[in-house]
């Protein structure tokens, strides 16, 4: 087994790390306070090619695959969870539905502008009455001539405030429900009938925009159906399978950064006559943080490898999402404790990492849903 | 009487011994002196102080090479420890081409075993070019030197990896052993007005 990263991955990592150090870290606090990524930073990210990392060069992507993408997200996760989430929602779920199940025409029409970052993508499945119970969505899509008419709303959509191209899941046959009654559509934000709600004010990842989307008698051409009519749920699940993995990547980055910051702090903070890093209590916390990080890093890149080699990763990505998010919460909690009082103060990034981490157990499918996915896989197979 | 005379026999007939020449080929210490503001530069004086230590350790002569014909400066060099002030016909203000020629020519005529330059931008510019011309070794950026008399080599102590380690370098075989100092390195000897020396022209 070859556990080394390729030359491409190492160089991508190095470039992203430098970018994060120079361009993102200095702005992380401002992004949190102003609840926005400055347009100049978005422009620089476009120039760096960050918006199309995993996608094939045939569609204007960078061609780095899922592994290269996780490497980039890991490095982003060291600097700003808000930036990582904006990028991830765009790439892993926003573009991914089109990439996995779109027709050649759809891919050629939409992906190049999305990969260049000229247009931003979002994934709209969740509704007020349908969170974990995604099958309970009620946004309707009624055929009318060459189009479908969409009516309904979506809630808590990441990038909802800035997205130009949105994968929207709507009910085309109420009687069939999730099994054959849901269809995925490519919606463009300039379609008449499309509107957005105000941005939510959140506990964390405040630099990423989250809002409601409203569709009122919105006409969507039939060519914009992703995959097959009625198979939208399959598309959604396929997309989320891959999307969850990259969330793990960002968690790895945050874990590593938190350990580094904690070591630095503990090496300088003198109490009871010596730096607290000499105290066993602190050392054990650091050791546990390292163990969690190694575990999460190993599973993320193993699952990414599986994905890049065409293997099915439904269960693995559910495990990664579930484990990485819970591990990060444990790591960030210890990081706050090691920092003591200063870990609670906004002068220091630790409290931002703490607030930013919490959402990972909730979005992209709650960890309860992930447990359902893993359990159903185990019971279906009858063994590990 | 039909033996052919060997090259050595022929040379011996003219009083030239090849072996002796090889052994004694390089002897003495040369320091390149820079001038400015009406005096010898502190970096050069620092190198001169080091040069004197090496010359004393080796029991050899110390020659200070100075561009330009200033005999007053030549006197200053002698008072600071040079046995010979060698004046080169080159502008006192640094000129890469003529200075390189002057230093090369001085080395070829005087055959010093050690050539030392102070820690200056001129040294950085000049020494590598001349070292390559002579296909000899150059220890760059020594903060300290240590003559090893029995081997007739000078060990240069050079800070490495942004000063995290110091390396001891030497040029055991090729001659001359060229060294330029780190900025601020060297030891300026006190002026000794009683010192005598020669002024030569290159």
């Amino acid at each position, binding site marked *: 087994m070859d556990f080394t990263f*390729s*030359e*491409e991955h*190492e*160089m*991508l990592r190095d*470039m992203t790390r*430098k*970018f994060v150090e*120079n361009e993102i870290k200095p702005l992380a606090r401002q992004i949190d306070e102003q609840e926005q990524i400055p347009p100049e930073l978005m422009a620089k990210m476009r*120039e*760096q*090619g*960050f918006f*199309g990392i995993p996608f094939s060069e045939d569609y204007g992507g*960078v*061609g*780095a695959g899922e592994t290269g993408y996780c490497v*980039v997200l890991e490095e982003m996760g060291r600097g700003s969870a808000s930036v990582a989430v904006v990028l991830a929602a765009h790439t892993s779920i926003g573009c991914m539905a089109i990439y996995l199940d779109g027709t050649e025409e759809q891919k050629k029409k939409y992906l190049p502008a999305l990969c260049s970052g000229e247009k931003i993508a979002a994934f709209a499945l969740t509704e007020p009455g349908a969170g974990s119970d995604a099958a309970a969505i009620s946004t309707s899509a009624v055929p009318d001539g060459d189009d479908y008419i969409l009516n309904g709303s979506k809630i808590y959509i990441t990038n909802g405030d800035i997205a130009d191209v949105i994968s929207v899941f709507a009910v085309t046959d109420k009687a069939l429900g999730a099994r054959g009654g849901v269809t995925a559509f490519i919606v463009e934000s300039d379609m008449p009938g499309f509107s957005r709600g105000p941005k939510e004010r959140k506990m964390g990842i405040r630099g990423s925009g989250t809002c409601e989307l409203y569709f009122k008698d919105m006409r969507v051409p039939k060519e914009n159906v992703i995959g097959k009519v009625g198979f939208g749920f399959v598309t959604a699940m396929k997309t989320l399978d891959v999307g969850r993995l990259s969330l793990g990547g960002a968690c790895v980055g945050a874990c590593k950064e938190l350990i580094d910051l904690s070591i630095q702090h503990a090496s300088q903070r003198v109490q009871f006559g010596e730096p607290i890093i000499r105290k066993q209590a602190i050392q054990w916390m650091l050791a546990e943080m390292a163990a969690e990080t190694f575990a999460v890093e190993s599973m993320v890149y193993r699952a990414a490898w599986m994905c890049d080699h065409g293997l099915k990763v439904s269960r693995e990505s559910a495990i990664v999402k579930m484990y990485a998010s819970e591990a990060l919460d444990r790591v960030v909690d210890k990081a706050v404790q090691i920092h003591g009082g200063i870990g609670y103060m906004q002068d220091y990034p630790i409290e931002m990492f703490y607030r930013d981490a919490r959402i990972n157990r909730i979005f992209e499918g709650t960890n309860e849903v992930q447990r359902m996915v893993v359990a159903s896989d185990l019971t279906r197979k009858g063994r590990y | 009487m039909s033996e052919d005379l060997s090259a050595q026999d022929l040379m011996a007939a003219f009083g030239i011994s090849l072996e002796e020449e090889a052994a004694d080929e390089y002897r003495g210490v040369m320091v390149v002196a820079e001038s400015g503001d009406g005096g010898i530069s502190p970096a050069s004086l620092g190198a001169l102080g080091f040069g004197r230590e090496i010359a004393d350790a080796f029991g050899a002569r110390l020659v200070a090479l100075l561009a330009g014909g200033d005999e007053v400066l030549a006197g200053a060099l002698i008072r600071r420890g040079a046995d010979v002030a060698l004046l080169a016909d080159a502008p006192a203000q*640094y000129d*890469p081409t003529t200075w390189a020629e002057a230093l090369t020519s001085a080395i070829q005529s005087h055959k010093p075993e050690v050539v030392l330059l102070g820690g*200056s*931008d*001129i040294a*950085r*510019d*000049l*020494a*590598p*070019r*001349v*070292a*390559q*011309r002579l*296909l*000899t*070794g*150059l*220890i*760059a*950026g020594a903060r300290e030197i240590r003559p090893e008399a029995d081997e007739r080599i000078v060990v240069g*102590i*050079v*800070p*490495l*990896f*942004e*000063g*995290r*380690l*110091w*390396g*001891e*370098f*030497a*040029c*055991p075989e*090729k001659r001359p052993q060229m060294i*330029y100092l*780190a900025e601020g390195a060297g030891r300026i000897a006190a002026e000794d007005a009683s010192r005598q020396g020669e002024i030569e022209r290159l």
Partner: protein
Amino acid sequence: MRIAICIKPVPDLSTAYVSKSRVELVEQGKEVANPADENAVELALSLRQEGDELIAFTVGADTAADALRRALAMGVERAHLVDDPVAQGGDGLADANVLAAAIKHAGPFDLVVCGARSVVHDAGQVAGRLAEALGMAHATRVTSATVNGGKVTIERAGSLGAAELPLPAVLAVEPGCNTPRLPNAMAVMKAARKPLEHVTVSDLGLAAEEVGEAGAAVRLRLMQLPES
């Protein structure tokens, strides 16, 4: 113009540490390009005009390939790596012999650029040596340059000031004098996949005594911990 850029692979000092017991630098991770050499690449790229060709040269083991690829990612066209084991372990003299031969082998060039000093020695000698070996003018501690006709006008850090040199010339670039451009993801991928040209000592027509450890005039005898 054809511009040659010399890249020296050095330990990554941001992750390396000194082992006090072994009195040596312990590297963690791969070698990187000497920072001043990246400033040199940036200077060369800033001088580049339509049709110019930039080639990077490195003497080093295959671990040095990464350092070379950074230059490729920044926009250099080709990279020549002398990874012949015979050429390793040289000093200023031996390395200059190899680099000069590699440059001549791929020549002729209008400009040769390199870093003025490395994080290893902090005192450079390669520029002057190369200039002598290639029969070119040279200047060190260069902070900026413009090319006009057959001349290059330079600014320098330190006491020597501005100057004008005839081409061809060797310029040793002062560390930190510019901001090396960060390649984007597309450039990175392209550079990572680009084949390097591997050069041997016999390709260059050099004798074993001129290169590597055998060709070194200066030897490292001992490492010591700095006195505080």
